[in-house]
């Protein structure tokens, strides 16, 4: 029942990062006609489109429904992704908190508390699975993604929902599922369901940052 903070932290970071990466709100402009012309809409074509971005900027509002709290916690801030491997989630309210993933390193910074901690992504195999699935997503590598998650696609090109269910038991003990939904080529919402009942919904706001 006790998990090391570093491991759990890393796990969480990874979940959050994943949300951040899958934010191709301006995807429509970037995706070439070749992809459109292929016709059949599916995981493959969606991933292929994601792989084409160089940079993504957005604003987010995350609503956390926690068992401990009587009312939901609302966190908001900005998201940044730069190809090939930089991610930054910068919360501005209620507390300033910066989460940065670059290469193999994750850094958490809480300026008010003068906390700045870095840890290697390779520190944890569960995390590694997460990151690899992230990279596979970026690379449009559906095969690798499928190695770590059971992927289910709902809806159609206009309104879709990508359901990722971790295959690894160690992951499943923490994360029940990650749902990414969007319209066309834009991600609108990421919902993370924890195995113990907590739930967070992150809404991606258009025209951010």
């Amino acid at each position, binding site marked *: 029942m006790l998990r090391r903070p570093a491991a759990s932290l890393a796990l969480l970071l990874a979940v959050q990062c994943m949300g951040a990466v899958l934010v191709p709100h301006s995807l429509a402009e970037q995706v070439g006609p070749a992809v459109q012309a292929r016709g059949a809409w599916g995981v493959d074509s969606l991933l292929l489109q994601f792989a084409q971005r160089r940079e993504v900027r957005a604003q987010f509002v995350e609503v956390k429904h926690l*068992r*401990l*709290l009587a009312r939901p916690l609302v*966190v908001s801030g900005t998201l940044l992704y730069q190809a090939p491997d930089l991610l930054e*989630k910068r919360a501005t309210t209620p507390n300033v908190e910066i989460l940065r993933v670059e290469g193999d390193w994750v850094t958490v910074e809480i300026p008010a508390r003068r906390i700045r901690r870095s840890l*290697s992504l*390779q*520190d944890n195999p*569960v995390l590694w699975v997460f990151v690899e699935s992230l990279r596979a997503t970026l690379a449009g590598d559906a095969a690798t993604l499928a190695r770590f998650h059971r992927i289910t696609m709902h809806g159609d090109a206009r309104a879709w929902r990508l359901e990722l269910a971790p295959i690894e038991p160690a992951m499943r003990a923490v994360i029940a599922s990650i749902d990414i939904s969007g319209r066309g080529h834009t991600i609108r919402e990421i919902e993370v369901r924890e195995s113990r009942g907590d739930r967070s919904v992150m809404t991606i706001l258009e025209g951010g940052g």
Partner: protein
Amino acid sequence: MRSVWVFALLGVALALCAALLLRTPVSGDLSAFLPRSPSPAQQLLVDQLREGVVSRLVLVALEGESEGTGSTQLAQLSETMRGRLAADPHFVSVNNGARGPLEAEGQLLFERRYLLSPAVTPARFTRDGLHAALERNLELLASPVSMLASEWIAADPTGEMLELMDLLDAGDGPQKRHGVWFSRDGSRALMILQTQAEGYDLEAQAAAVQSIRWAFAHARAQAGMPARLLLSGPGVFAVSARHAIKHDALRLSLIASMLASALLLYAFRSLWIVVLTLIPVTCGALAGAAAVSLGFGAIHGVTLGFGMTLMGEAVDYAVYLFTHIDARNSAASALRRLWPALVVGMLTSVFGYGAMLFSGFPGLAQLGLFSIVGVMAALLVTRVVLPRLVPDDLAVLELAHLAAPMRCMMSPLQRLRLPAAALVVFGLAWLVSQGGARWDDDLSSLSPIAQADKALDQALRADLGAPDVRHVLIVSGTSAQGALEAAETMGEALEPLRAQGHIAGFDSPARYLPSMSAQRARQAAIPDAPTLEQRMNEAAEGLPYRSEIFKPFLAAASAARVSALLERADLERSAYALKLDSLLLERRGTWYAILPLRGVADVSPVSYAAQRTGLPGAVLLDVKQEADALYRGYRDRALLFALIGAAAMFVLLWGALRSLRRAFDVALPIVGAIVTACLVLAVAEVRLTLFHLVALLLVAGVGSNYALLLERRALLAGDSVRSLAAVVLCSGSTVIAFGLLALSSTPVLSAIGSTVALGAVLIVVFALMFGPRPDELVMFRKH
């Protein structure tokens, strides 16, 4: 005496020795070659080296055999091995970085968090203290760590568990790849194992090492990949050193005795004579071992191995006898003529080896006793038994043909007298002026570990970020509680030093088992259940927490208030038990708490802070410096006894030969050879260790026989060609035996081997060089 009685007596004596030996345990404890310590702190140090946690450490590295073996596969191998070894009773802990503290430790920390955490103070449980904690938790819930936080906040809102993990998990761990420890360059997967057995228990260590090898072979076969297993650690070293010594000693001495036998066979052309030469040495070894058994209760494996080599002199006795038998002299009469020289030679050896008895190293003392009794018994057997076994029809050694080559050798040598004398005089002056500089003052130089193994150990330690602890604070008390309280006081004094960066951190037994008074104070810091609940409600006002969710906290805190105190027994089955035992120990009624310091930037504030605690008997120990000083002290003592032994040898020679001049003639080649051997070692940049000292004593012991036989008056008076042949034969077999030993990969063996081989050659060279001119000798005049 009738021969029958002699043989019966010999048989009974040998049977008694053998019976005694069969009941004598052979110990493999290498620390017998560590000094016996005078001060309690130093004794503690030696004990730690023998049986401390450090001595139970096994460092394991898995390395790909080719470029093709990736880190993924090595990580997998590491996990398979961990799974297998974790269930192995040889090990109390198996860690490859996967998972954090073991389940048992985590459980223990969590259940006993209010007794263990030094942050438990009354202020923490006031309304304000609790409010601050709850606000902090709210931030955690908003942060990405909410997943972790929500798990424990309800039961531990004040965060004692995090506090404990920070405290006990300090230190830079190794890097991880794929969830397990790796070297920085990613080429080696790493593991740390702790054996159940103490480091000096070589049998158990060997079994543990075997377990690791099996687990590796099993895992590798399962994965089907080419990988290499690298092992390091005190126990591993001890086992491999024993193996190497056994292996080297056995193999080399087999080869050596075969070669030496071949030499004797060539000289005497009689297998029976070769067999006879072995009788005195065998009897001597049995007697020596029996004496050690009586004197020490056990015999060290190394003593047996080295003792045999030290008794090389005993082989010579028989050779002296056989070379001196000729048409006019039967065995008995040859022996009568040789006897004075043999006795004086034996006594000089005994005086030389006597120095080892007083060296202060139990191992060396055993070696000394073994050799002294051994050579005495061997000479006795040579005198009493051998003549009765020499066949009447022994082919007389025809040595005339040796005269010419010997003359060729002596003439040019004697022309070098002046330069050689100058070399010895100036060499001696230089060595004396060098003082301690030529000595290896590092205690580790005594360890029989090959240099490559040491380098591997250092590499693995660096990879694991586990540098050797160098500074240690020791506090004491009359009871375990007293020592723990002292450790707590010292810990409080060290905390500010850590904050100021004078030290990177420290460990303390009180972290694993706080003193009872500290535990009671923590219990007293927690208010009673109604008060705590009321304060908690007040603290949560205005914060969005659901009511009633802190019930687990209220229950745990209330239970901790009245729970039984944590005891040593509660730590059993967790890795902390071993940790505690290594940091809290009892020696002769006094309890010691050991606080290892990490990253000491400056010693003076530490010693100042330690003094200011006013704790009686608090000692700041620089482990390395202390150990080296310890070693230096013993080396100086051993050197002193060696010099006394040398002086005694000279006085003995003087008395026995009844002439200062003759004593000088005998001593000169010995001194010359020893000085020159030291010079050669110095030029070869070999730093001298205690084992070189032993080797030089052996040179003096064996060499005194050569020098006595080749002494001017003896050569002029006696049958010079036989004496020369005897010495050439004996030194030849000594050089063969010890020259082979020099090839050993074990530092101890090669140090002794090279020094003795060199010394044996040099003594003969010096004796011939400063001996009579060839034309003075009868043997050469005939030509």
